[in-house]
């Protein structure tokens, strides 16, 4: 897989564009409009980063579980797709500095007795394939269902399947607002989400981090956050 090499040593699929992946199935972080244009918080952050890098942004939809592989194999220059930083992923790809802070939450049907992680024991918990929530869930139960996307998992939950879903609290809240019969329970932990880059491209990582820093400084990041969530999730909570 041959990429274009820039003067500063960073490598891009095409020297004029910044191709970044997002799943499109993680509303409101990334989703598509009814005309299939990709949008959402992740996507807008990606666009802002591209602009900061002086490159043409190209947002590309890849199923979530294929994104890391996609970045590794050069199908995208980077992924702005709500990837939680964790050690397993760090072995295969590089992470930028976090661009938002969030955390997995337990979602259940309104009539459920499940309140905290301790109630999950032995219960059937669904998560999106390739997400870090699988390993989160493993800590509390042995009975895990894998779905292709968070929304499919929530949909199945709402329809009466399995006992709980662990997903990002913002995603769950949005689905509940859209009429899914679900409720959020315990917020399990805090997590940091970052842009994913290939490991063999340190120069690009450096430039992306610089770009993120600039966007933090000039308030662009928090502006995008407020637009999508009504609150700023881009600063580290105390």
């Amino acid at each position, binding site marked *: 897989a041959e990429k274009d090499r820039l003067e500063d040593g960073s490598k891009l699929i095409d020297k004029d564009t910044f191709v970044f992946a997002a799943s499109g199935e993680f509303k409101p972080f990334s989703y598509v409009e009814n005309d299939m244009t990709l949008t959402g918080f992740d996507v807008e952050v990606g666009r802002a980063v591209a602009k900061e890098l002086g490159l043409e942004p190209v947002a590309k939809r890849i199923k979530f*579980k*294929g994104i*890391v*592989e996609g970045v*590794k194999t050069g199908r995208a220059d980077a992924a702005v797709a709500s990837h939680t930083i964790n050690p*397993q*992923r760090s*072995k*295969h790809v590089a992470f930028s500095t976090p661009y938002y802070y969030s955390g997995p939450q337990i979602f259940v049907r309104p009539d459920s007795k499940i309140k905290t992680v301790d109630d999950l024991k032995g219960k059937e918990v*669904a998560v999106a*394939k*390739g997400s870090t929530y*699988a390993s989160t869930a493993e800590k509390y139960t042995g009975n895990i*269902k*894998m*779905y*292709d996307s968070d929304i499919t998992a929530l*949909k*199945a939950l709402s*329809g*009466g*399947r399995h006992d709980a879903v662990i997903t990002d609290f913002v995603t769950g809240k949005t689905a509940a607002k859209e009429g899914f019969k679900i409720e959020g329970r315990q917020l399990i932990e805090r997590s940091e989400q970052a842009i994913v880059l290939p490991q063999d491209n340190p120069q690009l990582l450096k430039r992306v981090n610089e770009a993120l820093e600039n966007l933090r400084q000039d308030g662009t990041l928090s502006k995008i956050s407020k637009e999508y969530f009504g609150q700023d999730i881009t600063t580290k909570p105390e």
Partner: protein
Amino acid sequence: MPSFSHFFETLTGSTNVFIDAMLLTLELTAVSILVGIVIGLFFALLKISNVKVLGYISDIYVYLVRGTPLIVQIFILYFGISGIFLLPDFWAAALALAFHNGAYIAEIFRGTIQSIDQGQMEAARSLGMPKSLALRRIILPQAFRRALPPLGNQFIIGLKDSSLAAFISMNELFNVATTLGSNNFDEMTYLLIVAVYYLILVAILTLLVNLFEKKLAVSDR
């Protein structure tokens, strides 16, 4: 591409999980084919009945299944069935696959029933047998026998098709492969491993179907 030694290590290291998954795949396939046989027989009988409307119903069913991709059917049925009554996951997946297999099996039965010499029905009727009795005692037993090899083939096709149950969270072979693959960031190795499992299963089944076909041909009793 993974190195051969890495592939081999992963293959031997994962046999436990994969054998469980293989059993689930086989179970899913067997149940969906068996239920598919019931569905298929039902629609084949509708089709050969003298009531035109019933024939059309059968045609529409077959057309709907043959006219849309399996993955679309699986999603619709899985969520559709769920919307009506809540079946356990296994049964929801198995029924979705059975609905699909049923249309192909209906065509198999229709074909083999129509391949039975019209004279057999006439001979039975001329002995005073009512149509339903003649069908049950004379036509269907012969049609079933002829249907066995194509049913064997449909089993093999159904086995491969069951991989799509991965998308409705069945932990069958393909789902296990992609899950392990993405957890270990090593999709290729696990995909190749699961391909080996499928190849072996298909090889064994093909062998059985062929043996069986030969045996039927010999004992053309």
